[in-house]
Every structure is written in C-alpha cells, then in structure tokens.
C-alpha cells in the first residue's frame, strides 16, 4: 500500500456510504468527502487527483452536485500517464455534457491525444470525442478523426468511424469529407470495423443525399455480397449468437440496404433475392433471429414494391403476432403500424389478432394495439371494430380506460354511419366509462341528440334505462338528466317509439325520481346537480302532477352550501311560486342546437377550459333563454361556456321577466332581437352578475375572448367591444331587477311624482340623428335615489324601428330601467319615446352621477348603433 496515502480510499468511501442507514447519514458522509476533495483541489494535490475524481464520479451518480470537480478532469487529461488520462476522460464524459463551456478547454488536449503514439490513448480520446463532442469541437477535430479512419489498428478505425457519426450529426456540412473513407471501410473484414463502417454509411445517407447516391451506386452490390457471405458463413464462434453469425452486422446491413433501396427500383431489385433468403432462412426461435427477421421485414416494407416479398413479410408479422413472447408481439404491432401505409389490406387480415392484443395484460402492447386498431378503422368496419373496442373497455383497467375511451369516442364521431348508431355507441361508452369521457364529447352527444328530432324519444328512453343500471358514471348522469329535462314527456308517453325498442313504462314520478337521485347522489358534482335542478324546473311544467314534489326537491337545495345551487334553488322556487304565467314559456323545450356552431367552436381555439374552471355552473347546457342568432346573445351563450342553449322563444319570457314592455308586433320572437336593458339580468341568470367581483371579471374576460373567436358573426354589431367594456358595469346594476324578480314586485312602472326638488332638464346626448333629454327629479326622503325620464327625439327623416336604449353605471351606482313607452321612434321629431329609470347613488354627496349609454335601432332594417357617455348631470345627485 502506498505509504503516503491520505484520506480514504475509493473502496472505503463506497463502503462508508453504503453502510449509512439514513439519507441524512449519507449526506453527512458525502459532505465530508466533498470537503476533503475540495481541499485537495485547492492544494493542487497531484498524487490523489485520479482517486478524488473517481470518488466524485461515485458521488455524482448518487445525485450530489460535483461541478467543482470539472476542472480536475481537464487536469488529469492533460497529464501524461495513461491511468490519469483514462480516469480523466471518464470523468469528462460523466460530469460534463456537451453544452458546458468548460468542454471547449479540452479541445487542445484531445487534439494532442488523437496524435499520441500510444494507440490506447488515441482510443480514449476518440471515445470521449464520440460521446460528448459539440459542434465546434467537431469542426476543429474532424481532420484528425478522418485521418484515423485509415489507422493501422482496426480498433482505432472502428472508434474513429463511430466518432465520425457524431461529427456529421453535429455538423452535416462535414459529411462529404467522410464519404470516401466510409466507403473503404465497407470492404473491411474485421467485424468491428465493418459494423461501424456500415453504421457510418447509414448516417451519412441520412444527412447527405450526395452520400446516398454515391453509396447506392458504388456499394449496393458489395453490401449484398457481404450479407450473402454472412448468411452462408460457417459457424464462427467469436461472433456467434444463438447459431447466427453476428446478428448485429446482419441488422446493420439490412438497415443500410433499406435506405439504399427506398425510392430506387433498381437497387431494390438487386436485394430481393438476399432479402428473401434472410426472411426464409433465419431461425426464429431465439431473440437474435427474430431481431434479424424484424429488421428484414422493415426493409422489405420500405423498399420498392415486390408483391411476393411483401406477402412473405406480412406472414412473418402474422407469425410474430401469434408468438407467446410479448416482445415479439410488441414489435409485430409496431411494424404493422408502418405496414398499414404500404398494404392496408394485408394488415386488415390480422384484425382479429390485433383486437385480442387490445385486451392484453401488458400496457405497452395494449397501447400499441389500440393505436393500430385506430388506424385500421374505416367506414366499412367501424361497426364491428367499435363493438370489440367497447367490449374491451369493460375488461380494461382504470389507467387504460381513459386512453381507450378517448379513442372510441373519436372513432365513433369520425365514422358514424347514422345517428342512432352514434347515440347507441356513445351510450355504451358513457355507461361503461362515463367518468373518462371528456366534456366536449358529451356536449357533442347532446348536440347530436338535439338535432335528431326523430330520436328524441328513443334517446331519452335509452338514457333512462342506462341511468337505472349505472349511476356511477358522471357524464352518463349528466346527459340523461339533460334529456329527461328536455324530453321527459316523451319518456313517459313512449313518444316516437322505434320498432327496435322495447316499450317501457315510466311514470312521471319515476322520471322525477331519477332526477332526485342524481341531485342527492353523494358523488354528483356541482355541474350534475345544477343540471338536475334545471331539468326539474323544466319538468315542473311538463308534469303538473309532480309540481309540488319538484318544488320540494328544489327547496331542499335552498340551504346548499354551494352558492350556485342555493341561488338556483331560490330563483327557481320563485319562478314556480310567483311567475306561473311565464313558466311554461320559460321552460319550453330548447330549440335544435346548431351543430355547425358547436363543432366550429370545438375546433376553434375557444378557451373553454378557462371558463369551465372559473365556474362549473356555467356549463349548464340548459342555460336559460336567449334569442337565437343574435350575435350578442351568442356572446352570452359563450359566456355560459359551451352551453348549446339558444332558445328562440326565450326572448318573450325575458321581456316579461324584466318588465320590458315591447309592442308585440315589432318583436317577432326568434328574430334578431338585441338584448334589452335587462342584459344584466340575463347575465345574472347565467350566473355572471351576482357572483363575487372576481367571478364577474373572469366572465367578462371570457366574453372578450369569445368575441375574438366569433368576429365573423358579429358583423351587424360592430360596436360590440364597447358592450364588453360595459358588461362589468352592467352586472353591478343587476341587484335591482333581481330583487324584482325574487320578491315579485312585478314590473310596475315607476310613476313619476313631482314632489322632489326640481332640476332643469338637460340634453344628455345629441348626435346628428338623435337627441336624448333627461328630466331629473328626486323622491322625497330618499336623497340617494334619482328619477330620470329620458326622452328620445328623432332628428332624421327616417323612422327608427326596434329602438333600444341601454345604460350602464359604475359600481357605486345602481340602475333600474323601466320599459320604454315604445320601440318605434317616428321621423323628424314627430313624436318621442319616453323611458324612465331610477339611479341610486350609494356615494351620495361624494360622487356625482355618470352613465354610459348605448342606443340601438334600425333604419329600414339596417342596424345602427350609437354610444356615448353622460357626465353633465347636476353635481348633487
């Protein structure tokens, strides 16, 4: 032993670390060792440098930082002895990667070592260069490596060949320098050199088409001959693996032939014989043989068409597929994926076996098989394949169910031949793995059901049946709940019975039971519960006999801790109790959802995820009432997330609800009906307004983002951007109308009473076409509240139709708009529209009134929009 040895030996350190019982102990040992090594480094201790570096490498493997040892590698490499260099290069490859600046410092040492007289030192340098060289180093040292390709010792030649691969990958420009020396390597007899030479040629072909042409012309025959010699060679113990001479070389030769044959009929022709020979002669009972066969099949599939060979190859894959070894089956599936582009028909023949693999116990194989099946499906076989996939869904584990479900859903959507089949399959998937179905998938299902008017009854009954058997699948429950809400009457009366259906008897209370179950189910999430609540509301008018019970169920949620449910429950209860007259209109069946809009929205970059995350309640597909086709309404719909919820007749209800008195003639329901002054209430109903400020701002941003997406549909509302800026303000004004709704004050128009202090009337807004005058008064004993009577006068020679005034105020104000006296404004000042409003100033005395306004009307059915701000109110309002 070395008498001067100090510190611990490598072996002792490893032993000390291994004997540690806890991570803390290990850290302590490592810390001590690192401290000693650092000390040795700073003393520039030469005797133990290599030992210290070895220790550092071990410490590095344990995951501790060792950057302080990087320079030691360079010092060791620069020293003269072989042992020091050997450990230095090892450290360099282990502790550094090509992106570190330090690496540049080693270039010079490398250059010297590449020219060293000791071939083992050259070998070390080549190895390090091949493993970690950067592009700069590759440029600097390429000439040395090129020279070493002709070195006398074959072991250096092979290292140089692999090193060249790294160099040309880093700097493809250098490829042409290597073409000739690489070609000469192909004539070598030494297997190491040959194998690396073939590999170098393969990589040269990948980076340079020039090299590809050269090798194709000059080397194809030689390579074929080499392969032939190998295939026919007698037993060679040195290279033998499982009775085959050097499978590695076989594989590399086949790989290079593949590249040479691809896209070149002549070259492909030359290699047909040898490929056939390899494919038939190689024994397939050992892994090595199978590896060659696998490579050979890959080559046959890639080179230019030869019918006979392809059949041979597909048969080999068929054999692989039925192999008991999982590895072989895996590679067979992998190769079939590639073969499908070449010969889909042949792959279809193995469909049954592939489907079996989807049910395999091995996750890797299942996934591969599923990917393959996905590629196999076309219009003609979608039905049986989907059936099989859904069957395997039952057997699969949780982890795989997600992937499988997504694939099935996408297949069903893509290839579905008819709607009823689509609905059936989706139903099966929902009942089997509903928890894995993505939101947009079940939304799409609802859209499809809504569009298939002849299948409404069938769908709701099928869903009801499925719901009875599996209540654990969230999305199934949601779709079922939605359908029961919409088509509950069809469920009960067996409307639209199809021949294939078995009749079921569902009473009204059964349907309500189902909804009650889904509300009370412990694991129902908020969305489901809220959907069920809305469905109940809808059923209340369809099933008058159950309305008392429905009211009870709704009332039970009045004390829900979830704000959303509580609010809905109270609102719905109000509707049930106090607004009988509007209820039936309110809960009318939703109109057909627009498939094109939905799919467009799905395809588009609509940030649905954002809105879903801000509040699930906005997910409700039953979202209430809004005029269809009006872009602004669309906007609202968007803010209720993907709720596919246009309701054409809702316009009426809204007007009723808000007490906006519209003359019926001018507002045919369902036509482009811009939102009333009650936008805020509408927003509110869609759960935007009354929620805390954070949420309302998020919904505002939502609206904004949807505008970006829907620009095209907004042509007739060019000033929409300003509306969005209004909406946060508008929401703040909502409590007033909401109180109205809940307390049942009714839309009694505010009577103007002349007993407050009088103010002069002011012209609040005037344009070349329109004037708006405000008559202002105060209620006695209520200084905060200001009554305003707005008088609109038409200054143009045209009649204004569909006249609509909207106003928004800042947060400290509350605004209540009464219905306008008319929505038609006669031309040239021959009459006026009068609309009253009430503004409550919570900061009375501190801040004065301010208001933003927006006036929309039509001239000869052309939309006009005017906007402005009123800030000339008297100061003390």
């Amino acid at each position: 032993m070395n008498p001067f040895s100090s510190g611990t030996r490598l072996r002792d350190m490893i032993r000390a670390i291994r004997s540690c019982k806890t991570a803390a102990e290990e850290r302590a040992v490592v810390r001590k060792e690192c401290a000693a090594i650092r000390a040795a480094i700073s003393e520039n201790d030469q005797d133990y440098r290599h030992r210290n570096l070895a220790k550092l490498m071990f410490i590095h493997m344990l995951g501790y930082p060792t950057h302080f040892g990087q320079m030691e590698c360079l010092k060791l490499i620069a020293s003269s002895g072989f042992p020091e260099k050997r450990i230095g290069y090892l450290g360099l490859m282990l502790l550094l990667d090509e992106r570190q600046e330090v690496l540049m410092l080693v270039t010079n040492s490398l250059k010297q070592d590449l020219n060293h007289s000791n071939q083992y030192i050259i070998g070390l340098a080549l190895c390090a260069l091949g493993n970690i060289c950067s592009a700069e180093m590759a440029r600097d040292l390429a000439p040395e490596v090129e020279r070493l390709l002709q070195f006398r010792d074959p072991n250096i030649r092979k290292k140089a060949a692999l090193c060249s691969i790294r160099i040309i990958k880093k700097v493809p420009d250098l490829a042409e320098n290597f073409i000739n020396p690489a070609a000469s390597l192909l004539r070598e007899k030494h297997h190491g050199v040959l194998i690396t030479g073939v590999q170098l040629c393969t990589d040269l072909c990948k980076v340079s088409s020039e090299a590809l042409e050269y090798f194709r012309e000059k080397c194809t025959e030689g390579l074929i001959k080499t392969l032939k010699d190998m295939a026919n060679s007698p037993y060679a113990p040195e290279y033998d693996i499982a009775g085959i001479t050097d499978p590695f070389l076989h594989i590399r030769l086949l790989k290079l032939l593949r590249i040479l044959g691809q896209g070149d009929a002549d070259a492909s022709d030359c290699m047909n014989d040898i490929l056939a020979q390899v494919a038939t002669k190689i024994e397939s009972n050992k892994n090595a043989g199978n590896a060659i066969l696998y490579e050979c099949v890959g080559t046959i599939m890639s080179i230019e068409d030869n019918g006979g060979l392809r059949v041979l190859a597909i048969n080999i894959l068929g054999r692989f597929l039925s192999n008991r070894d999982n590895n072989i089956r895996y590679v067979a599936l992998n190769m079939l994926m590639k073969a499908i582009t070449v010969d889909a028909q042949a792959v279809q023949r193995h469909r049954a076996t592939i489907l079996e693999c989807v049910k395999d116990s091995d996750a890797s194989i299942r996934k591969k098989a599923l990917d393959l099946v996905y590629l196999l499906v076309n219009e003609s076989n979608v039905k049986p394949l989907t059936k099989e996939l859904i069957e395997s869904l039952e057997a699969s584990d949780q982890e795989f169910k997600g992937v499988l479900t997504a694939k099935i859903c996408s297949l069903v959507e893509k290839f579905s031949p008819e709607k009823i089949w689509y609905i059936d399959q989706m139903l099966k998937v929902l009942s089997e793995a509903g928890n894995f179905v993505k939101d947009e998938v079940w939304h799409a299902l609802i859209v499809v059901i809504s569009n298939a008017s002849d299948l409404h009854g069938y769908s709701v009954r099928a869903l009801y049946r499925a719901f009875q058997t599996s209540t654990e699948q969230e999305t199934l429950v949601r779709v079922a709940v939605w359908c029961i809400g919409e088509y509950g009457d069809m469920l009960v009366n067996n409307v639209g019975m199809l021949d294939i259906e078995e009749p079921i008897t569902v009473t009204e209370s059964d349907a309500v039971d189902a909804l009650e179950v889904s509300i009370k189910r412990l694991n129902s999430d908020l969305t489901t519960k809220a959907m069920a609540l809305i469905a109940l509301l809808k059923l209340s008018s369809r099933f008058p006999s159950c309305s008392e019970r429905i009211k009870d169920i709704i009332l039970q949620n009045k004390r829900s801790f979830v704000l959303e449910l509580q609010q809905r429950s109270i609102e719905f209860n109000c509707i049930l109790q106090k607004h009988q007259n509007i209820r039936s209109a309110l809960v009318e069946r939703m109109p057909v959802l627009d498939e094109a809009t939905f799919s467009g929205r799905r395809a588009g970059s609509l940030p649905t995820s954002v809105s879903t995350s801000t509040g699930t309640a906005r997910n409700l597909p039953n979202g209430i009432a809004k005029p269809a086709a009006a872009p602004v309404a669309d906007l609202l719909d968007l803010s209720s997330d993907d709720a596919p919820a246009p309701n054409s007749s809702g316009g009426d209800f809204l007007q009723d609800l808000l007490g906006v008195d519209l003359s019926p003639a001018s507002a045919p329901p369902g036509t482009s009906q811009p939102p009333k002054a009650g936008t805020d209430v509408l927003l509110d109903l869609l759960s935007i307004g009354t929620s805390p400020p954070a949420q309302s701002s998020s919904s505002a941003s939502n609206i904004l983002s949807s505008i970006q997406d829907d620009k095209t549909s907004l042509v007739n509302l060019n000033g929409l951007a300003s509306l969005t800026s209004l909406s946060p303000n508008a929401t703040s004004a909502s409590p007033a109308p909401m109180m109205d709704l809940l307390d049942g004050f009714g839309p009694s128009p505010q009577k103007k009473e002349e007993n407050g202090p009088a103010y002069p009337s002011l012209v609040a807004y005037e344009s070349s076409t329109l004037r708006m005058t405000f008559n202002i008064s105060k209620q006695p004993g209520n200084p905060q509240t200001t009554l305003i009577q707005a008088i609109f006068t038409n200054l143009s020679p045209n009649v204004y139709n569909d006249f609509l005034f909207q106003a928004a105020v800042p947060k400290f104000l509350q605004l209540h708009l009464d219905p306008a006296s008319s929505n038609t404004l006669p031309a040239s000042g021959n009459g006026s529209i009068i609309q009253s409003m009430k503004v409550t100033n919570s900061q009375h005395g501190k801040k004065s009134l301010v208001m933003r306004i927006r006036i929309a009307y039509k001239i000869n059915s052309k939309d006009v929009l005017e906007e402005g701000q009123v800030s000339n109110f008297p100061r003390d309002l």
Partner: protein
Amino acid sequence: MIHFVLLISRQGKVRLTKWYSAYSQKERTKVIRELSGLILTRGPKLCNFVEWRGLRVVYKRYASLYFCMCIDEDDNELEILEIIHHYVEVLDRYFGSVCELDLIYNFHKAYFILDELLIAGELQEPSKRTVARLVAAQDSLVETAKEQTSSITNIIAQAANFTIKMLHKGYGPWGSNALHLESLLLVDVCTRLVDQH
C-alpha cells in the same frame, strides 16, 4: 441510436448512467426518476419495451439490476435487447459471474467496458473476446504504471525511513552533516524519478 444507458437497482438506486444525447444535469435527474417509476413497477412477464416521451426504452432485468437503454422510435428493439445481453456477458466474463456489488465497487470498470462496447450511442464491437482483450490490455497499462510509481515511492519511503532512523540515532542535522546531506540527496533523486514518470 441509443440516447442513454441506465443501470438501476430494484430499489431505484442508480448504478451507471451514460448519456449519448445532450441532457442537462437537471434533466438527467428527472429522466432517471421518471423512468425508474415507469420500469420498476412493471410486472415480470410483460414485454421489455416502454414508450416514453416519443422515444422507446428497452429494459431487461438481470438479478437485482435493470439495464435500460433509450432508443429512437424506428430502432430495432429486439437488437437492443441483444446488445444489453452482450454487455452483461462481457461484464460477466470480466468480473467472473458479475453481481451488483462488483458494479458498485468497480463502477469505473463497468464504464470502461461500456466504452469499449458503445460509442456515440452505436455498437462498436460485436466480439466479446475483442472487448475483453482491449479492456484487459488497458488495465495492464494501468497496472504497469502503478507498479512503476510504487517502486519509486518505495525507494523514497526507504530513504525517508533511513533519514528518520539516522535522526533518531542522534545524527541530527547538527550532529552529522555528511549523513544528513546524503539522505537529502537521496530524497531529491527519488522525487525527480517520480516526476519523470
């Protein structure tokens, strides 16, 4: 091309890592953590391939060690299994029925052997005998260098002992100048010898 080679014990301890593609230290730790979670949990009879970040990891278990190699999608997985086995056989031949402890205490040897087998993520030598021969030749180079050093250090050690003895016997630096100078000279010569080598 092989992107990296990992040897992981059944307990998840890393025994060897070799990176042929550029991964920063941070990424390396992450990769190791991810893959050991992925591979160590797989059952015994399953196939030896795992898909991972668009690449494929081929692994094989030998006793308590998992040998993992990460390759491109279009590489031959079966061949990689053969390469892993090739490596194991060379290790076995070198250590004489190799076990995990051999690879722990002689981890640098495992690296040296791997460097004779793979460069730039490609196979370098299909003959086990050649690999063994090359590693042995380099080991003997190291041995010779070591012997040389130790023979020189022995001389120095003897000289030093001699000096110390002399000092103890009372030939202190002030006692017998001649002897003292002689021993100092000896030490000097020896140090130069060491330097030369």
